[in-house]
């Protein structure tokens, strides 16, 4: 099993979710997060006072998939989260050692 974490632009979440659904990915967790990479922050002005906002709002999704689905899922995220502009985000893939469905006690890929 592989765990995929992706940081994406918030408005791309729906599109990425649809694409992963179409691949048969059974579920995911999404977070509203803040962060910065090469895009860096921006400046906001309140009554003439300028504030540099370093952390930009992003969405982080996490999903665990069977090994054979991992490459396709990664490719789907990259395709559907892309705008071609700076700040599109990143995808990280890890090995996942175990998974349990709490209600039934199923383990491994059956739990996904």
């Amino acid at each position, binding site marked *: 099993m592989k765990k995929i974490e992706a940081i994406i632009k918030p408005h791309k979440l729906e599109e990425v979710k649809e694409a992963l659904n179409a691949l048969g990915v059974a579920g995911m967790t999404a977070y509203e997060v803040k962060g910065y990479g090469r895009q860096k922050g921006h400046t*906001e*002005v*309140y*009554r*003439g*006072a300028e*504030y540099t*906002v370093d952390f930009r709002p992003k969405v982080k999704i996490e999903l665990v998939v069977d090994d054979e689905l991992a490459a396709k899922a990664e490719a789907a995220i990259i395709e559907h989260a892309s705008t071609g502009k700076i700040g599109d985000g990143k995808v990280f893939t890890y090995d996942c050692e175990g998974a349990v469905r709490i209600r039934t006690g199923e383990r491994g890929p059956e739990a996904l």
Partner: protein
Amino acid sequence: MPAIDFGDTSFILICSALVLFMTPGLALFYGGLVRSKNILSTTMHSFFAMGLISVIWALVGYTIAFGSSDGPLGAFIGSFDHIGLAGTIGEVTGTIPTPVFAMFQGMFAIITAALITGAFAERIKFSAYAIFIGLWSIIVYAPLAHWVWGGGWLMERGALDFAGGTVVHIASAAAALAGAIVVGKRKGFGKANFQPHNLPMTVLGAGILWFGWFGFNAGSALAANELAGTAFMATHLSASAAMLSWLAFEKIQHGKATTLGAASGAVAGLVGITPAAGFVGPMAAIVIGLVTGAVCYYGISLKSKFGFDDALDVVGIHGVGGTVGALLTGVFAAEAINGVPGLLEGNGALMLEQLIGVVATIAFSFTVSYILFKLLDKTIGLRVEGDAEEIGLDLSEHNETGYVL
């Protein structure tokens, strides 16, 4: 006894409720501008004034402001014949029952005290704040109201202040300046991020202030008559014009018109027209709005130039706007509106009276406020201690959290 006019009475009853509603409006206006950890303490600074100042007004404030001027100190404070609102029941003021007049005026005392609190938001002790505004409303607000409206020396000289440009806005801003200086800057001022945490709240607050201001200004005619109508018109037009000029300057300087700029500009225009509302015509009101919006846009940068942390710009908006409005009242007062000509109609002498009113108000309010703040600082301490400021005043001063998510 003069006759009670039922139309006037019902109008002023409604206006009293409108003026009261400005204070929770102010709580929203100020509350949105602070960080989320101080939303409740900032709200309390306005809302608590509704409780405290009302009781103080009934006990002593009203008689100091509107007691008879016949006593030896009559030019400065009213006599004490109305302590505890004694002698108001059954009396008539103008064409309305005196209890209605006393309640209408009491609502002004509340909002004026609440306005000050923007200066020391996010760092003052609740106890020090409460003692300060309570004493201030007795020692500063009530005498000032007497000077200008209660038959005191400024009224005798002929200075014009229709609804409180000096008494409310300049007085609260002078106290705010003293407060900002004595209590000191917020931790991290100039370095940390003091982004407003909820601007929709601030805009709603500005809208409620605008709505309530019709009671404030039109109601200051103390009758449901043409003067109330022209004051209503002037109030509305000034707020609108000031929003436009503030945004125009903002757009030129920073490239974008901001929501906070629209709200701030409207409030600045409301402040600017407050002394003038019952003395000027509609086109003069638009000019007053345009000028006030522009001057206050630059007024808010005073604090960074002079290095005091007036957290929510009480000085920049209410002090600068109130001063501009008081002086422009002297310029644009029209005989056709309320029988008093201003500079443009050849009465240059009025300008001097307006200037005296402004200077006397600033000097009196600033001096007494400064002494009060210093005394509190030396005795119970003005400022929250330790890491209370980092934790936020909601938790450290009130044992509450504004947003539970």
